């Protein structure tokens, strides 16, 4: 029973929080720019508006790609523990993580592919070169940040000797947080966080001024609404993952969300002030500093084991 509730609950939380974060992001940036900024529920209005608009479609794949992306993100949420692990032992259900026993972190990493892949397929189906360029940038960026990210994940996994996120979180709460036990990895992960979220300085995938918002060039109406939701949930997933890996999850949902908010604010500050980089520079950056840090940390972890 609790399982069913959780399965309904955690995507809902992700949806609400994610959309609010989107609004919050716009507000924060406005304030940093000395503007008043839109109401915080502006994204909801946008989504409703888009849903009401009658847009175009370039064929079945054009829409199914979006569906795939959103579905993938929703499932990903179910594999991420959203706090509430203080009573972790012995019954696994008191942690808000419906699919805790279905493969753990490795599955999460693969499920996070559904989003980009779905969008890429849809964008490809719209015969628009802007979309293709955007997709190719997205792929390259993914490769760029995955290299350090994998090192980070492996360092954490070998630090706590498990591939299950719930266990990793539990270990952190028993012992010290990841940010203390694998500090360099935490730094590296934070450095690539903007790239994973696709925000400035790494928003070159959907760069409106260069390539007409890239993969979304042909999207409008309902599909665009769903993509916005997917973006929100992806934002939620990435930050939740960061919190779970390095900030020891949360003893309950509230603390978890607070931690998420903190991380989110930090990232948004970067987003608000930095310009956009070229894809080459993005790759060079990701393969230089974050990779070096993560590599050092992993070596240390392995040797200390």
């Amino acid at each position, binding site marked *: 029973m609790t399982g069913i509730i959780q399965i309904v609950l955690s995507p809902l939380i992700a949806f609400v929080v994610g959309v609010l974060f989107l609004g919050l992001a716009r507000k924060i940036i406005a304030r940093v720019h000395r503007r008043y900024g839109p109401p915080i529920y502006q994204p909801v209005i946008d989504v409703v508006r888009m849903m*009401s608009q009658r847009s175009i479609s370039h064929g079945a*794949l054009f829409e199914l790609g979006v569906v795939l992306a959103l579905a993938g993100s929703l499932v990903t949420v179910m594999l991420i523990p959203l706090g509430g692990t203080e009573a972790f032992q012995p019954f696994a259900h008191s942690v808000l993580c419906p699919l805790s026993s*279905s493969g753990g972190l490795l*599955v999460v990493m693969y499920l996070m592919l559904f989003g980009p892949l779905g969008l890429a397929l849809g964008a490809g189906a719209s015969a628009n070169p802007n979309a293709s360029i955007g997709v190719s940038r997205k792929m390259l960026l993914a490769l760029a940040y995955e290299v350090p990210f994998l090192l980070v994940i492996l360092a954490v996994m*070998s630090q706590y000797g498990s591939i299950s996120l719930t266990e990793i979180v539990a270990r952190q709460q028993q012992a010290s947080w990841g940010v203390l036990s694998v500090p360099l990895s935490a730094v590296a992960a934070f450095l690539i966080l903007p790239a994973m979220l696709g925000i400035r300085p790494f928003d070159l995938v959907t760069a409106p001024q260069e390539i007409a918002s890239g993969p979304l060039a042909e999207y409008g109406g309902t599909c665009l609404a769903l993509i916005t939701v997917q973006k929100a949930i992806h934002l939620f997933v990435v930050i939740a993952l960061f919190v779970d890996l390095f900030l020891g999850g949360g003893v309950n949902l509230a603390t978890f969300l607070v931690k998420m908010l903190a991380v989110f604010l930090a990232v948004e500050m970067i987003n608000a002030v930095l310009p956009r980089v070229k894809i080459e520079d993005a790759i060079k950056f990701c393969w230089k500093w974050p990779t070096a840090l993560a590599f050092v940390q992993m070596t240390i972890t392995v040797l200390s084991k």
Partner: protein
Amino acid sequence: MSPQAILITAFAGAGLVFLAGKVHSHLRDFLAVLSSLALVGLIAWSHGQYGPDNEIVYVPDFLGMELALRLNPLAWFFAIYIAIINAASVVFSLSYMKGKEKLGFYYSMMLLVNAGMLGIVLSGDFLSFYIFWEIMSWSTYLLISYRRGPALHAGMKYIIMSLVGSCAMLVGILSLYAQFGTLQIAELGEAIAGSSSGYVLFILMAMGIAFGVKFAILPLHTWMPDAHSEAVSPFSAVLSGVLVRMGMYGFLLVMYSIVGLKTILNLGAGFFNFHYILSWLGAITIVIPTFIALLQNDAKKLLAWHGIGQGGYMILGMAFGTSLGVAGGIFHTINHGSYIALLFLVVGAVEYRTGGVRDLNRLGGLIQRMPVAFFGCLVGIMGLIGMPLTNGFVSKWFIYKTLITEGHPFLAFMAFVGTWGTILSVYKLLHNMFLGQLPEKYKEVRKAPISMQIPILFFCFVIFLFGVLPGIPLRAIQGIQDTMGFAPLQLTMWGLASGAGALNMLNICFAIVIAFAVVLLLMRLGAKPRRVPQEDSYAAGSSVPAGKYHHSVEFYNPLYQMISPYLKDRVDQFYYWAADKAQGVFELTRRIYTGYAGTYVLYIISFLALLIFLQLAWEIW
């Protein structure tokens, strides 16, 4: 069903098809399909009939040795896998090869390769193993050369490398014989147990060269890209799907059936442990070819490089010698067979419809014309990447988990990076063939014929089935591992049940399906979009230029410019350099025969002088 009957059917099928080709083409095609399907049936029927009653000595005295066949879980597993993929590609050939020349030769060679491989897996002693191995090698060589032109060069490259390999294997086998006086695989197991680790290492080296050449481990891989891209597509499927994996079978046989788990794990010391070094080779085999594949523009070359790269995962899992890893390795072997065959068949279908175009820069938008092929390609690349719900995911998950829990994160890192490189290149494959703008000249392309769609859809089904219910093949693999003395895994129908870090594909499947349904409902809520042609696309207000509005050339240009300087196939260059020098030496040796009788007489006299001098100097007699 005795293994003898299986082999007889296989070889007889090959022969009959050749003869039938002389009689009538339909008879030939019918026989080819019939015999390949019959083999699948026979092998499937012989499931579980292991034990002494299926160990048959079919030649009692071949130069004083007896040739035996036997059937055991390992043999059966590989046999069924060989037979199925071969049958699928024979069916595919029906329309792909239509109207080509020498079809009798083609089909009989396809079946002969099949028979050779079946012989390899069914043979109960190393002599017949070697014999079937060689038969497979030269029939493959003929089949690679089938398509003229550059294929000839590819064929030569292949056969020379595999000759080197088989010489090494011959030495290994016969030294086994000289040591223990038997070549029966069953007996060798006990015989070798007592021998020194140095000797075992020598055997593993000798065999490993042969298997490594077939398996295309770095640095023995260089024949593979040419051979794959030059062979006809259905055969490329067989080549990359199963034939290359005979190396895997060999490794399993030698390492675990004969030498045995304990000896392998204790071979060498510390870092220089045999299986550790082997797994590093595997890791390198993953990374470099995968990124070389990224630079390819020929669809089949790209897939061939991936064939090499994926092999690395198998080695990585297999070399580790934990039950999870080995299970992952074996499972990955058949998974790779299924999706790489699928991809080659898809490329073949596209080639067939577009008039032999394989250049990724000249295709595009074919999804509108060939939906089934597109679906096949999508499923194939999902398997190759290892997306959840596909079988590739499960096996890779096994391998990753082994590496991490065994405490080798660096190996795991290489494996992961290989995967992410794979994503890039296979998406390029999909995008450049099927997505984007449909060029004018392909407006009239028809969709793939039914005899091509059947194998494609079949493989898609298999990929999803094994992806959601991995228990089906894993049970069989469990049986194999029992014979090799591995600790049993806690398998369930939908994955692995060992507490936290367990795998449950069924949950994930349900979750994804439900999420999919929910999102579809959401979409229904919104306004329904209207369908527009591809010309109605955003082009800053101007109308879309036909045929010019497609981005596929140099798809990953920024990355190319960064990595291409580091990704030359230096091994290949080295081999070519060596071959070049060798020919120079040959030319010099030919000078010995000057053609002057005088010189020759001089040789004779000096030889006599040499003999006598030797005697005076060293008293050789």
